[in-house]
């Protein structure tokens, strides 16, 4: 049995005196679709930033495929096959949609810091980028500036950039935030399609999306995971009901 895709051991993070993440143990298997839910301020985004190298953990370990990575920088973690999206749309607004995707491709296709290739003369690069544009339904917007896309299109582009490099672990931070129902449906379908056979970790507020998408759900409350189980068991869990889900599910009805 191979090592889990992501493993957290006794992970803690403090900002000054405030302890935001208070000791998290979590293991996410290869190919799993894992959702992290919890009330605002529970530390979901901080946890994301710890795993992806944006923040350094105060204590504990982060392992990718069994290797410790908690001291690595974001670009080093990305090179190990983990890619993430952002809660606030984080694209290259002054570049074309096509170029946004191509930038996501350059490292993993082996161009790295090359200054002896011309990007426009690499047919396989162009082809691959167009393929991804087709997948995320933005082929028609190929040559437009990313900054002028609609919000939903930008969110799709965000996911496109994230998966372009072919990372086997994909982490999405609130992919449906601020979307209408139909847009949400579209994005969920897109996520399903582009993360097939990959490990997916998603932070999400929309419980419909979470229960629809996830194989397992972890509930994060005040920097601790109070439950980590299948959707059915999490829904039935009393502690979860009390701390979080009860109120959310009621609101939803």
């Amino acid at each position, binding site marked *: 049995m191979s090592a889990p895709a992501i493993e957290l051991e006794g992970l803690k993070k403090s900002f000054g005196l405030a302890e935001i993440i208070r000791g998290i143990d979590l293991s996410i298997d290869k190919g799993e679709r894992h959702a992290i839910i919890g009330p605002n301020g529970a530390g979901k985004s901080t946890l994301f930033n710890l795993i992806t190298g944006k923040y350094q953990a105060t204590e504990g370990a982060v392992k990718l495929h069994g290797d410790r990575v908690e001291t690595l920088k974001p670009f080093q973690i990305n090179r190990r096959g983990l890619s993430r999206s952002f809660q606030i749309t984080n694209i290259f607004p002054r*570049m074309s949609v096509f170029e946004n995707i191509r930038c996501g491709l350059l490292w993993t296709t082996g161009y790295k810091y090359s200054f002896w290739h011309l990007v426009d003369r690499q047919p396989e690069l162009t082809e691959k980028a167009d393929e991804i544009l087709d997948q995320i339904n933005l082929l028609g917007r190929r040559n437009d500036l990313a900054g002028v896309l609609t919000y939903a299109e930008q969110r799709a582009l965000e996911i496109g950039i994230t998966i372009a490099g072919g990372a086997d672990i994909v982490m999405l931070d609130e992919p449906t935030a601020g979307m209408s129902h139909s847009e949400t449906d579209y994005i969920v379908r897109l996520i399903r399609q582009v993360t097939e056979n990959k490990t997916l970790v998603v932070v999400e507020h929309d419980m419909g999306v979470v229960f629809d998408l996830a194989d397992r759900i972890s509930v994060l409350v005040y920097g601790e995971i109070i439950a980590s189980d299948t959707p059915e068991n999490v829904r039935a869990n009393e502690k979860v009901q009390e701390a979080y889900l009860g109120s959310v599910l009621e609101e939803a009805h």
Partner: protein
Amino acid sequence: MSTMEQTSTRSGATAGSVLPALVPWAAAALLLIALPFVFQTGSSLTIMNQMAITIIFALSYNMLLGQGGMLSFGHAVYMGLGGFFCVHIMNWVEYDELYLPLPLLPLFGGLFGLFFAVLIGSFSTRRAGTVFAMISLGVGELIAACSIIIVAFFGGEEGVSGDRTMGPEFAGLDFASQQEVYYLTAAWLLLSAAAMYLFSRTPIGRIANAVRDNEERAEFLGYSQRHVRFISFCASGFFAGIAGGLFAINYEILTEENLNLVTSGGILLMAFLGGVGFFIGPIIGAIVFTLLQTVLGLYTEIWALYVGVLFVLTVMFFPAGLTGLLAIHIQPIRTGKIGYLYAPYAKMFLPVIAFILSAAAVLEILFHARHAGVGEEEMTLFWFTFNSQSAMPLIVALAILAGSFYLLRRFAPELREAWDEASHVESRR
């Protein structure tokens, strides 16, 4: 206007014919070859040489500012150091300590610029933004100060000088004439500009844009923002060094002035004036600036004031620079709506000219009245000769200024309307 020369947005056409891409370069080559036949005097050759050197320097500067989002206040250092090194090489060649044909000299200027860029970039590119800007300022002042102290290399206040003609002949040329130097400079200009353009189309060039736009995102795509900035910085230092080598060949002397803040600030000004968002922006900026400096400098002592005003107006009203001002017309031309603009432009033309000339007249009259020597009360301005101490000329100039300003204000709404009309695009979906 999302396409055309705007470097940041030009998207990848698939590998196809190379021919269309070569047209502008062939045209530029022809222009460079033809120019000396049109402008034959020594002074115009000097101006063109200066322009060519400044263009290379400005393009190298824009690799930092426009392409990489790094605001440098000390870019003259790399051009200056490259230049100093080249003058020393020139002297070694003169005393037969070294064999090097003159045309290859700028390459060594580039390598020396690159060497220092590696040295200084290794710590200055750690952070972008204000930190980078402050370090560049500090290093720039440091090296300018060093140049006065380290006399052995920089020659103290009088600088170091050499003689380009003392080297081995190259294809029968000894580079004693301005014209030969011009063609040498022009060849390096074409080569450097093409290399810098191609650099912007490589993976590292594209990622430099990405880091400029959103450094955090680039990090999560496998790129170290620091490495990306460092590589751009080194490339930029290399081309600045080439400009320095050409400077050494042209002027045969380098002084502290080539390293200091004035030169560094000047190149920032040129890049902005031309437009940092476009590859050709710095070229236009360098040409306009050099023309103002040399040609306007012949006619008025306060040319720097006009350049300053032009710069401030550009930054305030056309942040995309002169190239941006031209580029916004591309879309109306494409959609065939440029016609809406003809009438308002024609109406504005005379008032604009009157406004600029009368404003300049006011400044010139005041300047002359205050600074002319005793008894030199007569001045000639725009073919009129008058007494600068009397009130009448000033009153006339002010009246024209006020009148043209009034007309401009009156016509402005019409122009704005025409613009809205011309830039309106029918929704595509």
